[in-house]
């Protein structure tokens, strides 16, 4: 029941706000977000109590891992939704009928992807995330955003079609072995049968799935659409895309990883994930050494962090998997806060090119300080959560006997650290315009929530977080 409400709330909200008069749009948006939060809390409580929540005869199913993702998506949707509805340059406030329907549809497709047990339906939902967000990327209708939207649509559609080949092959292996069965594409069924599936076919399928969903997750070398789409999209959409959409791609990969590990042994997927993870961190570090534009810098940093997540999953073990899941959450918090603030910076300065940004802290005291702190958190500076999850991931690597990969990753992280710190220094200080007035509680809320939660994951895990993480990792056999 709670799962159905969770999915219906954004779907109905999207449908209604396409036709509602502009004056009711804000209210409808708030109502949808409120229902979404209530339903998400009910799902989380249900999973905490019973382990899994199901609906529609098992077609919809949230286990500990699904609940982890649901919590993240709804949290970032809330931050982005509040920012979009704010009077200061909020996209929703400016063009409600163009923005809100697609915004909620986008949230719906992401939630469907992580709450369905059917891997075919998951594919449809992940493809749906692209389709719902193409026109959001092109929201500002400039030449650059149009080009970004085109690249995004084409590259992600091709990528996701490759993932479909993988899905077909998994279904083939399944049907060959066990005959056509209504639930043959259900993840729970597959997991039960996985040890008897032909390993070579499942390996081949996993290569397609990794490349396909890896495109959505922004792993190099399939990341080329990402910096454009993330930097051209309006700030709340960038926050959702970078914070949770990439994580949905990773989520799809790990569901299949659990199957391929049972069918062909864990070494196969581990090697591929470590390889793609290192490639992503390398590509990102090369760019981040001298970034030119704030939003592109944040976008490349997403490639870097998703690469780290892939490393954690590849290294495996309890720390690797739990570290990767925690890193997904930490990255979502830090990155969505930063993207939301980058929207305010663009609003105030008219640009996000680093060359023309000076005196940020003096001009926008609240936004500027929040941006600096969140960027430090993103760079993995203690006491914020990313430090903890990065230590967990790299530690898992050394512990599992991968010496070169974690050492190389550490060196590349330092390169990115240096480049981004220099960029921050350049934009934060320098000759300043007179301070601008900033919205008070609305301006401070996303910063306080994002940084507050990052402090919690870094310093003192609230009761239940450790258990939730362990259970989510246990779903994947970590």
């Amino acid at each position: 029941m709670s799962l159905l409400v969770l999915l219906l709330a954004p779907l109905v909200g999207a449908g209604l706000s396409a036709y509602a008069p502009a004056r009711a749009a804000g209210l409808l948006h708030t109502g949808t977000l409120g229902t979404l939060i209530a339903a998400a809390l009910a799902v989380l409580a249900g999973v905490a109590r019973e382990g899994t929540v199901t609906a529609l005869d098992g077609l919809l199913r949230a286990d500990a891992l699904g609940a982890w993702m649901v919590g993240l998506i709804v949290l970032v949707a809330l931050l982005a939704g509040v920012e979009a509805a704010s009077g200061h340059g909020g996209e929703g406030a400016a063009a409600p009928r163009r923005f809100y329907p697609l915004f909620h549809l986008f949230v719906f497709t992401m939630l469907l992807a992580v709450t369905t047990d059917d891997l075919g339906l998951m594919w449809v939902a992940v493809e749906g995330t692209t389709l719902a967000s193409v026109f959001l990327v092109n929201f500002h209708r400039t030449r650059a955003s149009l080009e970004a939207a085109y690249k995004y649509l084409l590259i992600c559609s091709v990528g996701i079609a490759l993932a479909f080949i993988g899905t077909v092959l998994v279904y083939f292996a399944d049907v060959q072995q066990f005959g056509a069965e209504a639930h043959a594409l259900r993840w729970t069924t597959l997991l039960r049968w996985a040890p008897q599936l032909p390993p070579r076919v499942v390996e081949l399928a996993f290569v397609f799935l990794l490349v396909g969903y890896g495109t959505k997750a922004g792993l190099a070398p399939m990341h080329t659409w990402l910096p454009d789409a993330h930097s051209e999209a309006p700030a709340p959409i960038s926050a959702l895309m970078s914070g949770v959409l990439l994580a949905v791609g990773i989520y799809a990969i790990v569901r299949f990883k659990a199957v391929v590990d049972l069918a062909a042994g864990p070494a196969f997927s581990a090697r591929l994930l470590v390889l793609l993870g290192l490639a992503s961190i390398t590509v990102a570090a090369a760019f981040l050494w001298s970034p030119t534009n704030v939003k592109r810098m944040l976008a490349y940093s997403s490639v870097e962090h998703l690469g780290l997540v892939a490393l954690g999953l590849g290294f495996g073990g309890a720390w690797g998997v739990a570290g990767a899941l925690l890193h997904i959450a930490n990255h979502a918090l830090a990155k969505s806060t930063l993207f939301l603030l980058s929207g305010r910076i663009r609003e105030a300065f008219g640009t996000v090119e680093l060359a023309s940004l000076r005196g940020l802290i003096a001009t926008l005291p609240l936004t500027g300080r929040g941006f600096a702190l969140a960027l430090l958190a993103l760079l993995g500076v203690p006491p914020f959560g990313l430090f903890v999850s990065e230590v967990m991931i790299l530690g898992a690597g050394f512990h599992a006997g991968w010496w070169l990969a974690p050492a190389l990753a550490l060196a590349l992280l330092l390169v990115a650290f240096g480049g981004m710190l220099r960029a921050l220094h350049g934009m934060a200080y320098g000759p300043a315009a007179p301070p601008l007035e900033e919205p008070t509680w609305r301006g401070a809320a996303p910063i306080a929530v994002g940084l507050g939660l990052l402090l919690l994951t870094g310093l003192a895990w609230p009761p239940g977080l450790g258990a939730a993480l362990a259970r989510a990792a246990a779903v994947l056999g970590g």
Partner: protein
Amino acid sequence: MTAISNLLAFFALVITLLLVWRRSWRGRLRLFIAQSALLALLTAAVGALAGKRELIVVALVFLVLKAWIIPRVLARMAAGTPARPGAAPGQSSGVPLLVAGALVVAAYVIILPVTASATLPTAGAIPLAFAMALIGLFVCVTGRDVLGHVLGFLVFENGIFGLAVLATYGLPGLVEAGVFLDVLVIVLLMEGVVMQIRREHDSLALDRLRELRE
């Protein structure tokens, strides 16, 4: 069953190769329609011979979508571009055709684990459908304009559809329906984006899209 599926898949592959060879947009669009119709026939034949009624429904939907609705959208997208662009220097069909031939061989090699463990009577045609998909991907990534990209993507999609029919007698109905919906929405979104590109740039050639470079 084996003979029919092999024959139809073979014809569909030949059409795909012709599509690589043809330069004129109208000719390529007609070949795409022919390929889609052949795949619909293949699906219906497999459905009839294997006694799977739902496959016949899938074939009908596929026929309407890929051989009628989508080609109409494509024709709308292309309206206004020269029907027979003069071949630019260095653009011959020889090299792409050679690559496509190599892709057929590669398809046989890559898909070997699948054919080795397949027991359905349609197994022999699996590599042919996979080759179609790879060639479609090749057409897509080497497309010189937006239309080439879209057409290549659709051929790629057709190949994957054929692969699913031949290897598994089609996916569960819910997934199949979702896939059809997705493809339709992709093409409609592409049309929206293409129309804007044309308004902005007066052309669909890719060298005009150079706003976003590091």
